[in-house]
């Protein structure tokens, strides 16, 4: 079955490069901190708008069911930006490394064979049946690759740019950000929903890790090597 197929990968085989492991965990810490501090900041005004402006007394797009908290946004914002700086610097290191070492091309870009409609259909069916590909540990499957690429090249840049559009200093230097996202409050709303999409990715990501074997997958991301599975 699935677990037998996993054992096709000999234990001790290199699965994750050192750079991937370090940037993965730094990213995990930064992202969780950003979600937590983002929640604290949002609690100071849990309403979302569209356009340039939005305030109490003006119509909102959504009123989020969060308890109003006006006391913690100061340190919450400082924590948010500390984590954001860590995420951005870490992300730049990862991006440069992945491009220049060929990691992006070898590990993340789908192969021509993986993009065949037949292969895509098979992979979707496999996911729907909660099964693993025969070569699951040796390479990322095509849906996994697409998900990773969307997170790295679409969602993280989007959450960063919409975050910067909320900065009165950055938008003074780059007012085109307002035009790109339709105003400061639109950017705030997009920032929120992009963060929600990233959280959704994290939930699915963790679900997959648990499905395949929490211990072995987490150990692989720490040591870089495949470990013998606890259940044969």
């Amino acid at each position, binding site marked *: 079955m699935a677990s037998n197929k996993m054992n096709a990968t000999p234990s001790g085989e290199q699965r994750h490069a050192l750079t991937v492991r370090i940037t993965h965990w730094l990213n995990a810490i930064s992202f969780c901190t950003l979600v937590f501090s983002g929640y604290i900041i949002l609690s100071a005004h849990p309403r979302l708008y569209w356009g340039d402006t939005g305030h109490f007394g003006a119509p909102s797009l959504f009123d989020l069911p969060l308890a109003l908290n006006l006391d913690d946004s100061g340190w919450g914002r400082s924590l948010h930006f*500390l984590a954001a700086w860590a995420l951005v610097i870490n992300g730049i290191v990862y991006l440069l490394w992945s491009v220049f070492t060929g990691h992006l091309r070898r590990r993340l870009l789908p192969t021509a064979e993986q993009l065949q409609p037949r292969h895509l259909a098979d992979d979707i069916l496999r996911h729907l049946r909660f099964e693993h590909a025969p070569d699951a540990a040796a390479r990322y499957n095509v849906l996994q690759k697409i998900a990773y690429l969307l997170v790295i090249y679409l969602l993280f840049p989007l959450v960063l740019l919409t975050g910067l559009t909320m900065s*009165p200093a950055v938008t*003074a230097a780059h*007012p085109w950000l307002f035009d790109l996202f339709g105003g400061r409050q639109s950017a705030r709303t997009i920032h929120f929903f992009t963060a929600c999409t990233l959280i959704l990715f994290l939930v699915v990501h963790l679900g997959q890790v648990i499905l395949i074997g929490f211990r072995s997958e987490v150990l692989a991301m720490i040591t870089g090597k495949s470990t013998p599975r606890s259940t044969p």
Partner: protein
Amino acid sequence: MKRQLSRRSFIAGATATSGLLLTGCTDPILPPTYGSLLGLGEALTFASHRLLLRNQPLAREFDRGSISKGFPAINTTFPEDELYRRLLRGQFADWRLPVGGKVARPMSLSLQDLKRFPARTQITQHNCEQGWSAIAEWTGVQLRRVLQHVQAAPDARYVVFRCVDGWWDSIDMFDALHPQTLLTYGMNGQELPVQHGAPIRLRVERQLGYKSLKYVSSIEVVDRLDHIEDGSGAMVVSYGYSWYAGI
């Protein structure tokens, strides 16, 4: 003795390093208060914003049709101070704004004095730290005109503002001399309303709303902030907010 020596040499070394970092810079490259680990992000943001804004771009200005209806008024909306209430009853005819510190000509300016300077009107977006934003038209005198008028010392680095309701804050010369940094007395074509800070509200357009102080009652030009009030640079720092709010 040994410990004292090493501490002294450490301090000397640290001072030399910070002096080196600041050599040749008129404007600070680090915010004056960034003590904790949390302040590290703020320091990085401040330094990168100074680079980003080195050509002093203006914050976006909007057309009159964009002006928000029902611009929120928060925090103090009617100061309790007896003297303030008396001045308000007299339509601020007896109100004076002391401008002092490191200036060649310290003076007390009346509202009429401030209105005699060339006025600037700008329609800008106010960004509250809570997350809401609203657009209003502001009319006032550029702070840099007032600083030139009192002949602020060339080596002065910060401007400290104190307010009727006990708020106080400071900005550096980089923001103080910016063309959109105003002492406003008009809002949306009317006299500045009491709930929005009459008679004078500061506008610092490239930072969050809490830097745009209401009810400004005095201005002090200084070259350092550590001897002002609690030395943190702003009242809000004690509530966990950053001195620099360009975010």
